[in-house]
């Protein structure tokens, strides 16, 4: 075996992919897409305020409309105050981001409700005095009747939800007062208890809570995508060499094993380059300063960060995961003559790589359960399940060590078997081989 030959092949495989525009488009599209679906909507919402004018006709006789106006002004004020002082824990989940500023115009029911209703309809229809909607609060609202909401647009669920929430709050207070209970006292007594999740120091690697979880899942899917995508690249690469018959020229210069190893290492490096770019983007985006600027995270959440140990573990697990699957893909690519034939057998690998996705929730909820531990030790699952466990809670050292030993042994075995299949298959043209035939190739001297 010549290392320089392996290196020349590695270099070609790496450069031919990294120099390709498609690689950069795909690599940059993922973080851009992620940013687009996470940051943009929040940005858009916070920057684009609309104002809505709603006329509320109060027939309850309990001043509900005025109270509603006050309530809506209060929540709006609470929200802007919160935005000013960013990392203040928000009060009991109220004051969710609002899409609009509301202007409430109150009216008392007129002599002829029908005329009044018609007038309001006209105002909404003409947009005169900028009225977007009107509400009719009948006396029954205090019992169990619905409040009427008449608007140009009745699919604006967020506006309706806001109105429903604030109206319920106001009506609830009226009802309490009618029942002789002080609403303020009631609120005090029924206040929710918050759960402050703090990770015990030294037990895990991520910042904890929701952010830590998202971080772990993001890592998991990045690895999943990379292993699957670049593994299949190996297969298409081998098929291309076979299809264009470059293979005979190559085999007359270097051994099949050197060719296979060069290809695997080169493409592995491409995958790592891409992963590094992605992780780098994650690091930049989650840097404290940027998070504060973009303000797309809920207040009071500390961002998890990548430690060196974690990065190293990720890199090694990616390499092992890549080799566990890519060797298989190389052998399949070598055995068949075209993509259609190869794809059928290649789907065997997909079954194994998808399995951890199926039990993702269970593993996240209890990363040290028997199932999670067992899966993280099974070589074909280790590269995906172990990073997930590491991101949530650092597994015991012996489990980590055992996983590495098992996966490494498995990978060495795969290289041995697949190199043999590759060596024979790569020069076989014509008839599609059966799996038994392929297995027989491994026993050729």
């Amino acid at each position, binding site marked *: 075996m010549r290392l320089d030959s392996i290196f020349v092949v590695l270099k070609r495989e790496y450069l031919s992919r990294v120099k390709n525009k498609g690689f950069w488009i795909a690599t940059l599209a993922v973080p851009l897409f992620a940013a687009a679906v996470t940051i943009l909507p929040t940005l858009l919402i916070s920057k684009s305020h609309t104002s809505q004018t709603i006329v509320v006709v109060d027939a309850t006789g309990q001043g509900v409309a005025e109270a509603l106006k006050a309530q809506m002004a209060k929540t709006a004020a609470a929200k802007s105050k919160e935005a000013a002082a960013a990392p203040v824990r928000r009060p009991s989940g109220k004051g969710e981001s609002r899409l609009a500023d509301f202007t409430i115009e109150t009216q008392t029911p007129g002599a002829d409700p029908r005329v009044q209703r018609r007038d309001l309809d006209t105002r909404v229809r003409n947009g005169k005095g900028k009225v977007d909607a009107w509400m009719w609060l009948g006396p029954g609202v205090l019992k169990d009747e619905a409040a009427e909401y008449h608007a140009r647009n009745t699919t604006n669920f967020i506006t309706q939800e806001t109105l429903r929430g604030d109206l319920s709050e106001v009506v609830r207070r009226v009802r309490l007062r009618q029942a002789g209970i002080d609403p303020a006292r009631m609120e005090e007594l029924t206040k929710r208890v918050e759960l402050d999740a703090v990770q015990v120091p030294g037990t895990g690697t991520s910042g904890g809570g929701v952010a830590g979880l998202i971080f772990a899942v993001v890592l998991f899917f990045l690895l999943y995508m990379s292993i699957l995508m670049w593994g299949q690249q190996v297969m298409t690469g081998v098929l291309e060499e076979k299809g264009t*018959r470059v293979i005979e020229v190559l*085999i*007359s210069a270097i051994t099949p094993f050197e060719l296979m190893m060069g290809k695997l290492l080169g493409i592995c490096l491409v995958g790592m380059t891409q992963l590094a770019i992605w992780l780098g983007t994650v690091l930049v985006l989650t840097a404290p300063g940027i998070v504060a600027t973009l303000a797309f995270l809920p207040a009071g959440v500390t961002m998890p960060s990548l430690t060196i140990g974690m990065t190293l573990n990720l890199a090694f697990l990616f390499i092992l995961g890549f080799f566990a699957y890519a060797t298989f893909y190389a052998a399949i690519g070598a055995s068949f003559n075209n993509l259609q034939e190869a794809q059928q057998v290649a789907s065997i690998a997909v079954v194994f790589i998808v399995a951890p996705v199926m039990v993702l929730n269970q593993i996240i909820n209890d990363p040290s359960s028997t199932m999670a531990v067992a899966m993280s030790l099974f070589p074909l699952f280790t590269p995906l399940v172990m990073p997930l466990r590491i991101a949530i809670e650092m597994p015991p050292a012996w489990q980590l060590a055992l996983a590495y030993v098992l996966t490494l042994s498995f990978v060495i075995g795969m290289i041995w078997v697949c190199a043999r299949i590759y060596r024979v298959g790569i020069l076989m043209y014509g008839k599609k081989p059966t799996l038994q035939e392929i297995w027989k190739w491994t026993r050729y001297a």
Partner: protein
Amino acid sequence: MTPILEVRDVRKSYGDFVAVGGVSMSVPPGSIFGLLGPNGAGKTSTIRMIMNITAPDSGEVLVFGHPRTGDDLRRIGYLPEERGLYRKMTVMDQLLFLGEIRGLKRAQLVPEVERWLARVELAPWAKKKIEELSKGMQQKVQLIGTVLHKPDLLILDEPFSGLDPLNQELFRELLQDYRTQGKSVVLSTHGMELAERMCDHICLISSGRAVLDGELRDIKRRVGGNSFRLLAEGDLERLKTMPEVEQATIQNGEVKLMLRPDADGAEALRQMVGFLKVREFRSEEPELEQIFMKAVRDAA
């Protein structure tokens, strides 16, 4: 002198089909060795065994005087029958890659590649992708890739198919250069005229067996000692029925005659004068084509 390449009775069967049924040949240094035979004779199968792409069922192949090792690969240049290049790579990158996998350094390679591209008039195409080139151009790139590392032994499987006469001539010159440097070339072809012009040694394969093997001059003397050229008028077809005539190729009133080895030329001429108006009859070296046809017929 040890032969550069020696093939000893190699055999290869695929199921019941015998692709190569015992071929031996010996390629001396400084020679252009033609592996000749009709389509399906086993030329490519033999070459693939020489290159260790397939393993022979029996027999052995010696290169540079010993069984082939991994290190020998870098002293051999191989042009397979089914050509292939990476379609998306540029001509320059492709050639640098082919040089580098044979252990050459980039710095030495660049001027070498440029020199070759200029020589085959492909210099303006250096930065173009392979898929943008015509078939003939790809063929030239592939040939350069085969000789770039200055191998001591070149093995070319049908190197001239797909090349126009101008380029054929160019590569003929290249191969002659090669020989004068004391290196050896093995080429397979079914084009007899070409082989005749280029090769000094030949091995004729028919139905998986070597039917003739040796120096072309010797073979001609041995096989074709009784060849004549005849210019005559009359019933030329009747020549073919004469017992002395082994082979008669008639073209525009000119006949290439090959008599049986034991036949007497003068006696044959006397009989011909009986039914032909002979204008010229002289002894001549046989063409390879005639030898080939005779050998294939004899073997069958």
